[in-house]
């Protein structure tokens, strides 16, 4: 579908388009976090991120894939990788993947540079040069097919399934119809919604992958422990069954067909091959889930909430959509879209959905979100426990 709508972004060597121009300083092992932070704080467009699985963990292939996915995200213009020298996850493991994108990637070994202080100095020098290079990049108009939006809800309440999620769903349908990609995840929040989701899969293969991912997650969370899929707060708020809770959450993904299920494993972290709606085999934990979506290529994350959310992602702007009128009044310094008007009868779901759609395009073109300029952020990578998966006889490979 060709659309007349455009957004203004930064073109990358592989043809992808960033909505921000960020230099990523990666502590490829957690002991390098301080060095990464020292370097990034000296350069305005640089951010420091760390993977905290350190050395001697199993299952770190998936960690490398997620971190490399983040670095390959079109919002990232250039990457500096930092290693200590003795770590098991050498910068080269990340570098091989990131280099595929054609963006500038450099790496430093603390040992080879002669210690922390010299690495900081050299790192600042490298990142400043990178910044000079990227400062010449100008935003240009691009079709919405170059846009991928991540979808996430959290701090949910009784209004989530009535206002913020369905309104986001309207915006997602508009995005997909205009050629963009949208990704949702949180398989645990799909338990009870399998039937509704299955009806929406494009092919039998997509359906099988989707059901496998949801069933795997259910096994992880019901083995050796009793997880309350429905808490007291949910029920007091009016939710009567897991189906109702999940359907309310799924609503944020709109009504279009699910074009694919993206793998997130030791083998690969997949990104959408084309426009359309995709499900990612990720987690529901807020920060890690958002990093899942960024690793899968989302340049912006749309976050629906009943309460608010205090974190920023550093690598992709988060648009906060609140469906609770009281929370919006209380938290309007943080909230980008007030969907509480649906509850108040002032706007329809359709109308708020259209506002979200246009806000997404505006943010893609450079409009800062309410919390974007605070200059802080949370970054965390999640990987499933490979030992548990092995014991359960389940696999992340689809």
């Amino acid at each position, binding site marked *: 579908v060709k659309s007349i709508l455009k957004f203004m972004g930064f073109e990358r060597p592989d043809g992808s388009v960033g909505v921000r121009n960020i230099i990523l300083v990666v502590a490829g092992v957690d002991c390098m976090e301080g060095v990464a932070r020292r370097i990034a704080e000296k350069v305005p467009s640089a951010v420091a991120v760390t993977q905290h699985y350190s050395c001697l963990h199993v299952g770190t292939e998936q960690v490398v894939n997620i971190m490399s996915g983040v670095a390959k995200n079109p919002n990232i213009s250039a990457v500096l990788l930092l290693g200590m020298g003795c770590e098991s996850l050498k910068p080269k493991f990340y570098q091989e993947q990131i280099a595929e994108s054609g963006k500038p990637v450099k790496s430093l070994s603390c040992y080879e540079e002669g210690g922390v202080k010299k690495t900081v100095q050299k790192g600042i020098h490298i990142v400043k040069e990178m910044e000079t290079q990227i400062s010449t990049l100008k935003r240009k108009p691009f079709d919405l097919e170059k846009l991928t939006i991540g979808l996430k809800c959290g701090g949910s309440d009784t209004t989530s399934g009535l206002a913020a999620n369905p309104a986001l769903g309207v915006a997602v349908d508009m995005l997909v119809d205009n050629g963009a990609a949208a990704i949702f995840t949180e398989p645990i929040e799909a338990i009870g*919604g399998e039937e509704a989701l299955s009806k929406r899969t494009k092919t039998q293969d997509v359906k099988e992958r989707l059901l496998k991912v949801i069933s795997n997650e259910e096994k992880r969370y019901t083995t050796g422990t009793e997880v309350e899929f429905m808490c007291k707060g949910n029920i007091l708020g009016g939710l009567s*069954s897991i189906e109702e809770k999940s359907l309310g959450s799924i609503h944020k993904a709109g009504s279009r067909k699910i074009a694919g299920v993206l793998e997130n494993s030791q083998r690969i972290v997949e990104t959408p091959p084309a426009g359309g709606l995709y499900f990612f085999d990720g987690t529901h934990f807020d920060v890690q889930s958002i990093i899942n979506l960024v690793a899968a290529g989302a340049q912006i994350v749309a976050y629906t909430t009943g309460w608010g959310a205090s974190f920023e992602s550093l690598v992709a702007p988060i648009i906060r959509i609140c469906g609770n009128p009281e929370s919006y009044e209380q938290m309007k310094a943080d909230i980008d879209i007030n969907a509480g008007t649906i509850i108040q*009868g002032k706007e329809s779901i359709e109308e708020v959905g259209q506002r979200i759609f246009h806000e997404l395009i505006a943010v893609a073109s450079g409009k800062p979100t309410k919390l974007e300029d605070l200059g802080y952020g949370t970054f965390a990578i999640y990987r499933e426990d490979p030992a548990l998966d092995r014991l359960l006889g389940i696999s992340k490979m689809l």
Partner: protein
Amino acid sequence: MKRVIKMAPEDNVATALEKLEVGDEIKVVSEKGGVVDTFRTLQPIVFGHKIALATIAEGSKVIKYGEYIGEATQLINRGDHVHIHNLKSLRIPIPEKVLEEVRME
């Protein structure tokens, strides 16, 4: 007139957008924003809880978002409160421990 929202045309329940008292005349709004029905409540219903839009026989499916959210464990009349006392999941029942906590509130 107080409002409840019906999320899909085939739904047999709607959700209260404000607190409803017994006998309140209510209007049912659709997700498009239009009024699709008006009637009176039979029971008090708090904000965010569901009201039956039609009579639902015991063992019949309760539909919200155009999908099954469970089945009726007893006869539900149009205007009744629909919640854990007359609806149960077809997928994973709410643990008794959690239900006890809710009842104690």
